[in-house]
């Protein structure tokens, strides 16, 4: 077992005041209660308020502010939403009242279900026009509470977060580019630790819900930033540490755990070498494109063509076909093709090169798309956020006036909307995509550096470079198209 101790000079948990608040026993609960209050407000206004999305707190806060702010948090800090996730509150209640259930089935201990849930969620979003329905948005939130509760009641661990939750899955992958990460302050303390409370928990404190062992964490994948590990550690040895940009995508030197010797070897990647995890990264990228594509004129033309060809007006079916193609089949085919080609090209150049199986090559290179994928999602969500962040003001005024409160005025100021001009938003989108592409390129080149020779590295990364370039160009093209907001089949 290898222990990992990243080089770091900044630890958020050491910041006076804030660090203590975060490590405080009830620190997470306070954040969750705030988020719970917001979730209840979303449910209340979604079910009982005006059903015009632009006038309802449920639709505006969930589809504009949540998405915009969560991307900002991921970019500047980390997985802060999961840290304060309100859906785990009833989950904890379920755990208390149901006792220990069974373990999550072995066959589902992977990301395939999470990939399906993420694609399914995005399909639901379009097929049922969730963005236009406060009522459905409220029920989505209720569904989240219910799913989290039921799974926690049935199973002993926290499978909802790790294996099911689409929001968590999204945040896990996106947080791989985040600057903060849970880490052991001193690996030798963990080596001699008997209780391993960070993962096992203690009578007073829960251990890691997703069963991560702090000194082995090299990636933000599966980390909810709940800080239960920091609260549980009796040695105060857990840091929420700053790390170098893109450090997850750079092969890391690690020391063998058993010997503690100074000898080092190269780890292939911070990500596990698994089909499911690597495929998740690709789906995350392609889904970002498909989601943005769903708001442009060509998708309506495509939907109309499919509708005529198949003789159906079922928007759900048409969308299932389009999303199945764009979010599942295309990343699978192109990813496998790139891996196969990368393996062939690298091996042709240098037969001694460190090639590995198709799975190893796929799992080694596919995750390097994550920075570009993040940029695509950031560009999309910030288009909406920058275009309508201030609409929350009149929506809140409207809500208060509805309840006889005129504290913020007796008339909603509907003229409020954007926080950036259209030109500035477009520049932001382009800057995000360019940064994302260059970051993926850097991650790709550092990953390829583990190949045997420079020539082999260049040849091995070529198919992936082509694929990332196509993705980046497709993203620029999509974001250059005029946006439309309407039902799919007119």
């Amino acid at each position, binding site marked *: 077992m290898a222990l990992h101790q990243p080089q770091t000079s900044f630890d958020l948990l050491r910041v006076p005041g804030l660090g203590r608040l975060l490590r405080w026993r009830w620190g997470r609960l306070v954040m969750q209660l705030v988020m719970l209050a917001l979730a209840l407000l979303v449910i209340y206004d979604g079910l009982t*308020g005006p059903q015009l999305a*632009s006038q309802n707190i449920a639709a505006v806060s969930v589809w504009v502010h949540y998405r915009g702010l969560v991307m900002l948090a991921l970019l500047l800090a980390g997985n802060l939403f999961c840290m304060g996730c309100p859906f785990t509150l009833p989950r904890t209640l379920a755990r208390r*009242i*149901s006792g220990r259930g069974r373990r999550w089935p072995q066959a589902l201990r992977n990301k395939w279900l999470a990939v399906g849930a993420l694609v399914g969620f995005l399909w639901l979003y379009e097929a049922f026009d969730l963005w*236009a329905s406060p009522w459905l948005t409220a029920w989505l939130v209720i569904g989240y509470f219910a799913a989290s509760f039921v799974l926690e009641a049935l199973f002993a661990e926290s499978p909802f977060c790790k294996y099911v939750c689409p929001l968590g899955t999204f945040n896990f992958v996106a947080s791989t580019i985040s600057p903060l990460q849970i880490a052991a302050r001193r690996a030798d303390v963990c080596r001699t630790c008997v209780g*391993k409370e*960070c993962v096992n928990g203690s009578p007073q404190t829960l251990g890691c819900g997703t069963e991560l062992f702090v000194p082995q964490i090299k990636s933000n994948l599966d980390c909810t930033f709940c800080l239960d590990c920091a609260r549980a550690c009796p040695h105060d040895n857990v840091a929420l540490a700053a790390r170098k940009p893109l450090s997850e995508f750079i092969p890391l030197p690690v020391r063998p755990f058993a010997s503690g010797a100074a000898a080092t070897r190269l780890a292939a990647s911070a990500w596990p070498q698994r089909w499911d995890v690597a495929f998740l990264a690709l789906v995350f990228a392609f889904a970002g494109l498909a989601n943005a594509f769903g708001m442009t004129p060509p998708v309506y033309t495509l939907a109309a063509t499919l509708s005529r060809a198949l003789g159906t007006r079922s928007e759900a079916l048409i969308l299932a076909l389009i999303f199945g193609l764009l979010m599942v089949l295309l990343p699978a085919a192109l990813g496998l093709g790139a891996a196969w080609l990368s393996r062939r090209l690298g091996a042709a150049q240098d037969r001694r090169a460190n090639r590995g199986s198709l799975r190893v090559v796929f799992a080694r290179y596919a995750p390097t798309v994550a920075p570009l994928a993040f940029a695509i999602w950031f560009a999309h969500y910030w288009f909406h956020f920058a275009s309508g962040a201030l609409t929350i003001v009149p929506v809140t005024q409207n809500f208060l*006036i509805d309840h006889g409160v005129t504290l913020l005025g007796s008339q*909603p100021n509907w003229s409020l909307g954007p926080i950036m001009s259209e030109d500035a938003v477009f520049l932001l989108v382009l800057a995000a995509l360019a940064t994302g592409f260059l970051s993926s390129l850097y991650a790709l080149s550092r990953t390829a550096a583990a190949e045997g020779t420079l020539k082999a590295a260049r040849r091995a990364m070529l198919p992936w470079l082509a694929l990332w370039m196509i993705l980046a160009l497709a993203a620029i093209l999509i974001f250059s198209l*005029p946006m439309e907001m309407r039902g799919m089949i007119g």
Partner: protein
Amino acid sequence: MPVFMRPISTKPDLLHASRPVFLVLFALLLALLPTGCQRASQQTTADQAPEITAVLTVAPDPALVGPATLLVQLTDANGAPVESATGISLKGDMSHAGMQPVLAEASGGAGGVYQAQWAWTMAGDWFVTVTATLPDGRTLLRRFDLAVSRP
């Protein structure tokens, strides 16, 4: 088993056997949540003149992204034009939350027709909300759904 796995509790758990009961109770709780019940006090969206007919006409028709003219025609229950309505405001919202609405004031009134200059800013589904104060002081409020296409 890895050393860091959770220890399995061996203490008797009386609540464990009641798990199905809790699940049923939770499902019932969900079913009892208010579904579709609208708030009674939506002061900002109340229509006080249901007998008044309002017709919205757009030019160009069908609506295209760009400048447009919107005409609102008001007639009473007898079909007579309502000519002296005041404060006729139009608000155009897109179906997606967070899009800045288009706002305009309509003027005129001859023959019960009020006119406003307008601009459709994006193709897609729009909701135009017309608010007016009638001569008797009541508030008229109507919503019109329409699709806007690219030129």
